[in-house]
């Protein structure tokens, strides 16, 4: 069992004729994901990896019954791709694209809040439920089925931690990268809520970093609502204030967005925090 992503996702790949879209469409199919079509305006009628390409999301949905979209189109057109998927009634949109302007994301967040669509990302590696399906770019060989839910803002750091879990025999229910941008479709709290309700998830790993207050919100949620144990790692203890550390969202604006404040809040909520990401599994006593 898992959250968000399983064998019931019928997935279209927006940007399937681009280099990344093409490559990862193939990887996702190899993992067992139900990729049903691609969308690439102007390339309708083509076929990629044996899947039909459509000019619009609505045409792809009409023809295939797709309920999920993963977006690989470049930043200048990515916001339009998100609106198109929302308007076509897609239930789950996972946007991998990095570099969507802040103003566009503010508009998207307001727009999507009036619909039933869930947006994950942007600037995220996607969602993977081991042995079920992978939507995005998380390397499938890292994961194995199990009972730990993993949620992270960062990509490669999450891969390293999932790898460490798998190496000591700790499997995962679902692995979710929510993204490194300051404005995201889905927050830590949204995901924690789903893990709390998921019968297949027994423990949760949360990987955060400097910037914003989503870890502080997560700590409040864990303290008041969460019954499952949570383990964490927060990157950026030594990051200087006021400087953007790679991710558009990773900047210490005030004391609350610094690593130490987040660690303190999470610890106060009962979360066990690792100093070294690779050694996080040692806290879990499986």
């Amino acid at each position, binding site marked *: 069992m898992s959250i968000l992503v399983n064998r019931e996702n019928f997935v279209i790949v927006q940007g399937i004729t681009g280099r990344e879209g093409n490559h990862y469409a193939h990887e996702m199919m190899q993992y067992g994901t139900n990729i049903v079509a691609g969308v690439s305006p102007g390339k309708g009628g083509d076929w990629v990896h044996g899947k039909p390409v459509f000019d619009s999301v609505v045409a792809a949905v009409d023809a295939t019954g797709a309920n999920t979209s993963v977006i690989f189109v470049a930043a200048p057109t990515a916001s339009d791709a998100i609106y198109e998927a929302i308007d076509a009634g897609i239930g789950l949109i996972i946007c991998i694209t990095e570099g969507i302007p*802040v103003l566009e*994301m503010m508009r998207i967040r307001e727009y999507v809040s009036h619909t039933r669509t869930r947006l994950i990302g942007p600037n995220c590696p996607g969602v993977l439920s081991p042995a079920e399906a992978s939507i995005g770019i998380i390397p499938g060989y890292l994961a194995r089925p199990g009972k730990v839910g993993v949620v992270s803002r960062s990509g*490669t*750091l999450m891969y390293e931690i999932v790898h460490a879990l798998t190496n000591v025999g700790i499997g995962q229910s679902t692995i979710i990268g929510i993204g490194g941008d300051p404005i995201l479709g889905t927050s830590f709290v949204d995901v924690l809520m789903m893990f709390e309700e998921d019968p297949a998830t027994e423990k949760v790993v949360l990987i955060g970093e400097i910037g914003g207050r989503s870890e502080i919100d997560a700590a409040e949620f864990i303290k008041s609502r969460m019954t499952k144990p949570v383990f964490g790692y927060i*990157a*950026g203890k030594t990051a200087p204030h006021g400087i953007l550390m790679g991710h558009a969202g990773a900047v210490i604006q005030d004391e609350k967005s610094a690593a130490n404040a987040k660690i303190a809040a999470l610890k106060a909520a009962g979360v066990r925090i690792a100093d070294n990401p690779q050694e996080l599994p040692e806290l879990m006593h499986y």
Partner: protein
Amino acid sequence: MNVQFDALQTYLSRFDIQVVESAASSLHFGVRITADFVSVSPVIAVFQGSEEIGREYISPLLGLRDYQARNLGNMANLPREHWGEFIRLATNLYRCYTSADALSVQLNPLTLINGEIAAVGCSMRVDESALFRQHHFLAELTDETYHARRGREVGITYLPLKGQIGVLSNGAGLAMATMDMIALYSDNTLLAANFLDIGNDLHVDKLTLALDLILSSPNVRTILITLFAAAHCVNAAQAILGAVQRDTPPIIVFLSGIDSDHGRSLLDGAKHPMLISAGTLREATRRAIHATTTGET
């Protein structure tokens, strides 16, 4: 990134906002619009010095409403006869904010000249993610260093810091974690000399530039490379070997991912006197700290 004053003055004039030279300010407040990540909307506020007088949240879909600007004028004790003019100014400022993809724009203080409100000072910060449609600002951005720009052009994020150990990682989170472990395992006696996220594709040219950027800082005594190479450990090892010079400070490499054993044995097999690999982040960090304090690998 901040926009230079002269360029901003010209830009504001396109939105009928005047910036005047040090006229005595007849209004004792300023106005600013900033991207607020908590409410996920732009916020317009009037303020006096460091004290905020009032704020309104702007719907990013609808834009600023007249009543919101009027409320702010009222809160700032602006006489009623100038409310209409303040609405005009605030509306133009919001148009400027959205047109420029600003993260913040500020006019402070404001002054009245012949019934028109003008600004005495101004500043604006633009969203780096929007530079693809804001090319005209590229030449005006002030606070990007030469080295950071060289990196950005090939997809490397480089930021110089104050420590002694150069860091090279793929992924912002992994780079920050690597920086933190230097402090952790040296009891805060050593720090990272830089933040560097090399991005997705690893090849010799990109690694060569990354090492160049790291060594542009005179403080660097050791380089710690932590790569989650996913499917490409062998490629990553080959790219590292192709990029590393004979004459270099000690380099410690942690490679993880598919074929990491093969990648490591390639690195070790090269028998470069200044290059060693390590099996875990802890071991790699400890070796980098050792090399920094002793000068030996």
